[in-house]
Structures are given as structure tokens and as C-alpha cells.
């Protein structure tokens, strides 16, 4: 078995520890960025929803400012965003390279995307449900948690699936500028050193991860939709 692998993918086998580290780094970035973005993206998505015109906490100023900030960061291509955020990344993380340097730009790139996704999931909630809850004496906080979030769980899962998959793309991109992870590994050895087997293995691994996330997402959506 080992010999077959040595034959088939020699360039992976001769730097296995580094390869495992790249995969581990990838999952650390995916996990931390995913979790932080989920929290802040949901928060901003909720704020956008409830402050829009005619909603439970209508507030033109907050809606406008938050909306513009989100659009600004969504408008900047991610590769440029990484450099643009460089000085701030250095202040926050102490460095702009490696795993630590990658997290901040990843979050800034992901949160606005997820926030808009959450916003559109919440927009699916029928106004009548909000009205019925108000008529039952629910407070704005209760409406946010018990109606908006609870009733759009399938939509939020769908948004999470889409965001995680697009986050995989961003993580490989930070790899290109020294961020570590599978992308970094693939570019450094697969592309720059022309070790094609490295490229192939990395692509297969990314493919597996993407398929798994989509599959799990689909199952969860099915289970939560009534």
C-alpha cells in the first residue's frame, strides 16, 4: 500500500508532515472563520432585517450605514482586500502572514457575504407571522429569536452551506499570499515546483470537503423543513 502511494504521489509522501499540517491549518481557518462569521453574520443579517422600513425596530440610520459598510467590503475583490487590510491585520494579529495573518481578512471577507445571505433568508419570513407574534404580545427580542431565527432555520442552514463553500475558495486564496493551508501547499509545490501529483491530491481533497459540506447541508435542510 505504502509503496503504491510512494509511486503514485511521491511528492506528497516525501513531505507528509507538512501536508498534514496544511490540512490541519485549512480546517483551523475554516472552523474559526466559519464560527466567527456565523455569529457576526447572523447578528448583522438580523440587524439589517429588523431595522428595514416597516419592520419591528425600524431605524433608517443603522440600516443605511450597516448596509453600505457591508456592500463596501463585498465590492472589493478578496485578493485586494487582503492587502488593503494588511496594516489593520498587523495591528490585530501581529503579523500578516501564516495562519494568524489569514484569519482577520478571511472574516472580513466572509461576514458581509453571510450577513446578506442571512438577510435574504429572514426576508422569506411572512410579514403575517411577525404581525401575529406582535398581536400575541411578543417583544422585539422574542420575535427575533422565536420567529425570525427559529422559523428560518432551513434558510440559515442553506446560507451557511453556501458561505462555507465560498469560504473554502477564500482560504485557498489566502494560501496564495502566504496564508498557509491546502491552497498554499498546492501553489508552493504543485504549481511553483511543478509537482503535479500535489495539485491533483489537493484538488481531490477540496472536492471531498465541498461535497461533504453540501451533502450535510442538504440533509439538515430536509430535516428542518416542515
Amino acid at each position, binding site marked *: 500500500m505504502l509503496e503504491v502511494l510512494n509511486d503514485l504521489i511521491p511528492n506528497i509522501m516525501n513531505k507528509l508532515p507538512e501536508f498534514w499540517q496544511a490540512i490541519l491549518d485549512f480546517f483551523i481557518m475554516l472552523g474559526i472563520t466559519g464560527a466567527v462569521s456565523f455569529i457576526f453574520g447572523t447578528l448583522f443579517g438580523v440587524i439589517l432585517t429588523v431595522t428595514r422600513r416597516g419592520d419591528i425596530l425600524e431605524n433608517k440610520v443603522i440600516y443605511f450605514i450597516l448596509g453600505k459598510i457591508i456592500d463596501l467590503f463585498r465590492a472589493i475583490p478578496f485578493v485586494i482586500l487582503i492587502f488593503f487590510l494588511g496594516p489593520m491585520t498587523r495591528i490585530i494579529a501581529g503579523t500578516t502572514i501564516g495562519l494568524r495573518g489569514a484569519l482577520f481578512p478571511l472574516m472580513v471577507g466572509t461576514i458581509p457575504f453571510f450577513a446578506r445571505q442571512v438577510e435574504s433568508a429572514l426576508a422569506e419570513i411572512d410579514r*403575517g407571522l411577525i404581525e401575529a407574534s406582535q*398581536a400575541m404580545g411578543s417583544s422585539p427580542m422574542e420575535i427575533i429569536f422565536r420567529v425570525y431565527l427559529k422559523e428560518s432555520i432551513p434558510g440559515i442552514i442553506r446560507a451557511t452551506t453556501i458561505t462555507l463553500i465560498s469560504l473554502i475558495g477564500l482560504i485557498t486564496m489566502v494560501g496564495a499570499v502566504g496564508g498557509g493551508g491546502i491552497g498554499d501547499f498546492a501553489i508552493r509545490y504543485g504549481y511553483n515546483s511543478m509537482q503535479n501529483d500535489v495539485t491533483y491530491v489537493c484538488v481531490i481533497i477540496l472536492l471531498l470537503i465541498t461535497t461533504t459540506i453540501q451533502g450535510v447541508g442538504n440533509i439538515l435542510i430536509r430535516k428542518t423543513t416542515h
Partner: protein
Amino acid sequence: MIRLEHVSKTFDTVSGDVHAVKEVNLEIQDGEIFGIIGFSGAGKSTLVRCINLLERPSNGKVWIDDEELTKMSEKALREVRKKIGMIFQHFNLMRSRTVYQNIAFPLKGSGLSKEEMDKKITSLLELVDLGDKKDAYPSQLSGGQKQRVAIARALANDPKVLLCDEATSALDPQTTKSILKLLKQVNEKLGITIVLITHEMAVIKEICDRVAVMEKGKVIEEGNILEVFCKPQAKVTKDFIATTSNISRIYEMVDEGSALTELKPGQHLVKLNYDAVNTSKALISEISRDFHVDTNIIFGNVEIIKDSPLGDLVVIFGGQKEDIQNAIAYMEKHDVKVEVLKEC
């Protein structure tokens, strides 16, 4: 008692101010079923939302018993709203929750223990006759069943008032009947005041004690249902009443020259309108006997409203011209409205 004093609601839209409700004064007594009818756009939905302040009136006061809702803070208002149930045209049930969980929704924070809550929900499910649907999701229910769940949910906090916003408008006639029956039962058994808005006079006729007719944001006619049906004043009211009967068909039939309306010489085609008082007299037999007028009933439409019959008969009178004149005068004396549609 619900009291609206000079309630107005104006929406400022991009195309200018829209006066949805104008200067409405209403008093709704405890325990009655009060109907508000109007064509769409008449402002009735806005008016009913002014009662629980889902729409805050631009002007005027809303009182429930001796509390002025329009003066309350949002927080105090939320407590009051728990005692005002509301149901909607499109039911507004939570799709991710079962029937049981939907009814449990308003009970959160009510201080009931799990057992008490369970008991309460079970008895509500029995009241609305859905004991076996406890674990179903709304998507598995029919429209009528959804509205029953919504009614159970609205009653969970033992409200004094139930507001119904076009609650039967999305249902077929048979289901409408069963929902109205349930509402009537809720009103009688639990003594809950019901405010019901609709665009169907048949709904008003079926269960309301009193009715207000709305047009262009104003209440243009109001009163006891029997009075309004017997002696409608406003044109809109008459139009609404006409929708509940097919008697106006006769005018078309006369125009079209239908065979049914063909008269022999000396005959009169006459429409008789009865109200609650004179239906008990045997007027038709009296005029045949005393005035020698032959009476042939072509068709009729008699309604039972609040246990009193009222309606119209279309008849052909035959006999001597003078006798017919006398018979008509006699009927008019007995408060029957007589309209001669055609003579020959």
C-alpha cells in the same frame, strides 16, 4: 367594552398621504359579536389593527374597559395584547412548529408549569376539535384546520376579546360555516367579545349581533343587525345586503322578458318586502280572501336573522284593477314594501 374615540389613521406613502381610517367612533359591548363590513380598501383591516395598536392611530383614543391603550408604553401594551386574541385571513401559523407548539407559543412566560400548559393546550385542542392533530405540522393541515389552530392559539391566554381579520375569506363556504359556528361557540361558552371584519354580508348575517359598515375610511352606518338588514340607509349597505339574496335577479328577468314574468291582461308583477314584524301575519291569504286577488308566488328569498325572518317575495297579482290597488294599499298599511315591477 372597547371604545374608539375619533380614531384616524393616516399613512404617508411616496404617493402622498393615505387616510385609511377617518374619525371613527365605536363602542363594542362585552360579550357581543360585532361585525365590520366594507369593500376592500375601505379601511376595515386598519381599523381592527387600531384596536390592539398593531397600527398606532394617528389621532384619537382607544379604550378597553377603563384602560386607554393609546397612552400606554410598548411594554404595558404587550401585556394588554396578551388578553386580545387575533386571527387572520392567512392563519399565520409557524411552519416550523407543530400544532401543539403553535398553541404553546403565546404561553411562554405565562408562568404556567409544564403540566398546566399541557392541560391547557389539550383542552384548547378539544375545543377546536383537533385533538388528533396535535403533532401535525401546519403544512399537513387543511385551511379550516389551520384556522382552528389559529383560534386555539388566540385563545391560549384567556383573552377577553378576539379580533378576526377576514378570518373566513380564504375558506370555502362549508368550512366558513364551521369556523363561524366555532366562533359563535367561543363567544357563547367563554363569553369572549368578538370583533369580526369581513367583506361578506353572509358572514355578518350568520353570527353578528351588531354591524358597522365602512366606506372610504369612515363608518357610514352602524346598528343592530336586524335594523340594518330591515332598513339599510347607505347605498353600500344596500349593495351588501343585495349580495346575500338573489331577489335582484327579478329585475334582470323583467328586462330580459323572461317567460316567468309574462303577464296576462289585468295582472301585476309585484315585489313584496317583508321585515321582521309583519311576517307573522297571513297577508297573502287575507288579500285573496278579502280583496279577491289571486296571488301566484314566483319566487322568494326569506332570511332568518337573529331568529327573525325577513326577505322578499315576488308574486303575480290577478283580478280587478281596483281590487289589486286596494290589496296593495292594505299591504303597505301593514309595513310591507310593495314595488310594482310590471303591469299588463
